[in-house]
């Protein structure tokens, strides 16, 4: 396994109050949410989360009746200046590595980008980024 962080994906119906149930379960358990992204596709959506305690969050959400999937994603640290994200995207594109989706995560003075590539290309993606001096994180 290459350097990665764990992301939780939760299946949600597109209904009022469902998102609140997920965040409620986490808040009650005192689990911090580091990053959150909600993708909708008609009647349903997927909520992607990066949290402080992935396994405990998964157990609690499943006990709460949600379908949860844990998958690895790449987290890279970037400075708050223009052109940073472009550099990362260009590096991967030059190697023919496709980014399936990306979102951001805030923590401290530097920003963090979360990237998802094909699982088989993850290792190569991390190598490409690190060899160009990009800092890839194994925890956020």
């Amino acid at each position: 396994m290459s350097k990665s962080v764990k992301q939780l994906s939760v299946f949600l119906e597109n209904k009022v109050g469902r998102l609140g149930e997920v965040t409620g379960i986490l808040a009650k358990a005192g689990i911090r949410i580091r990053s959150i992204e909600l993708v909708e596709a008609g009647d349903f959506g997927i909520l992607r989360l990066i949290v402080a305690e992935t396994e405990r969050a998964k157990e609690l959400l499943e006990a709460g009746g949600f379908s949860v999937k844990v998958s690895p994603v790449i987290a890279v640290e970037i400075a708050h200046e223009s052109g940073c994200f472009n550099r990362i995207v260009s590096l991967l594109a030059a190697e023919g590595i496709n980014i399936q989706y990306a979102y951001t995560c805030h923590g401290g003075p530097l920003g963090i980008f979360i990237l998802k590539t094909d699982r088989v290309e993850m290792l190569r993606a991390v190598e490409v980024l690190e060899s160009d001096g990009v800092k890839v994180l194994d925890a956020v």
Partner: protein
Amino acid sequence: MIWNTVESASREAIEAIQLKRLQETARRVYALNPFYKEKFEERGITPEDIRSLEDLQRLPFTRKQDLRNHYPFGLFCVPMSEVVRIHSSSGTTGKPTVVGYNAHDMEVWNEVMARVYTMSGVGAEDVVHNAYGYGLFTGGLGFHYGAEKVGATVVPASGGFTDRQLMLMRDFGATVLACTPSFALHLAEVAAKAGSEFRKDYKLKVGIFGAEPTSEGLKKEVAKAWGIEYREVYGLSEIIGPGVSCSCSHSDRLHLFEDHFLPEIIDPETGEVLPEGERGELVITTLSKQALPIIRYRTGDITSLVKEPCGCGRTMVRMESIVGRADDMLIVNGVNVYPSQVEHVIANAEGVTLNYQIIAEKKGHLDKLEIMVEVSEEIMTDNVGELEHIRKEIQASLLNNLYINANVKLVEPNTIERSMGKAVRVVDKRR
């Protein structure tokens, strides 16, 4: 008008025909089909033991599952060289229920359908707009050849294409509409967009409706929407197709052509035959079919029978319009669907058993089916595209295997209502 004098024969004359034909049918299946021979032997009887109509009760029941177990032609009693037509209805895991006819059976079918048309006042001067689906289902072709038999002009419109159908009905001067009641209402609704006087553009006088259970209220609505007489036809492919029974101008009950189809009403739990007039499951023995004779077929339909002659002059037993089902079968826009079939299709499409619920509703006048499928851990993925693909795959699979157009909706685990720990499989909001 009555097509055949046998329809108004005395009870004794009808029973004499029935006994003779029942004996012939028993001899036929016993001699020609190992399935029946074995069933007779299990009960220690031979065709010679059938000496009266009461002896019918000694014969074994035949169920839909027996047809499936002998897929495709295992229950046929003639060589395939003699079979001239095959029809089928949907089945589980893609295996349909198959029925076959020889030339003689086709004549029987056309005969009973000619009785249906005559009972509906349809003859050579009429133009029959046939919007039952043509194809493997018996509806389209059954209504088609019966109409030709009485000399009417048939327009084989089949299903769909509402606007085009309405144009053909107007331009060809259709006097008879043959389709499901829900489609008739749908047609009327679209036709009414031309204005409240739309009926003057049409020459319809009667509609012959069937293939789905219909409340008295819906029948009145259809009749009023088009300003026509409502005739109800009953039938099922395992027996022959449409043409087992039909209502006349004097009664809401349906005359059952009992010289060809011998009916009984049983208690679906015990299998015991119930007295005349009581409601129970309709069981039919075919009396004249040769390719696929069927002994005591459990239709699953709940109705009652009365033998009292009708004001129209017919004496044949009259059945009540179907009041329900003995099993959990649903009828959706004329197509029969069992929840177990839906379950098989979902399991085959995804390789895992998923929790589901079927919701039947009315959208306008047509049936709309929604199938909720719970996203379990087995199929959960981080990829929205994959989930959407699963949804579409189940939807396509239902259409291909069961011929139903359903909207599949993915829902969270434990969304589906449980009753005493068991998931509620069917929610029918149409009644």
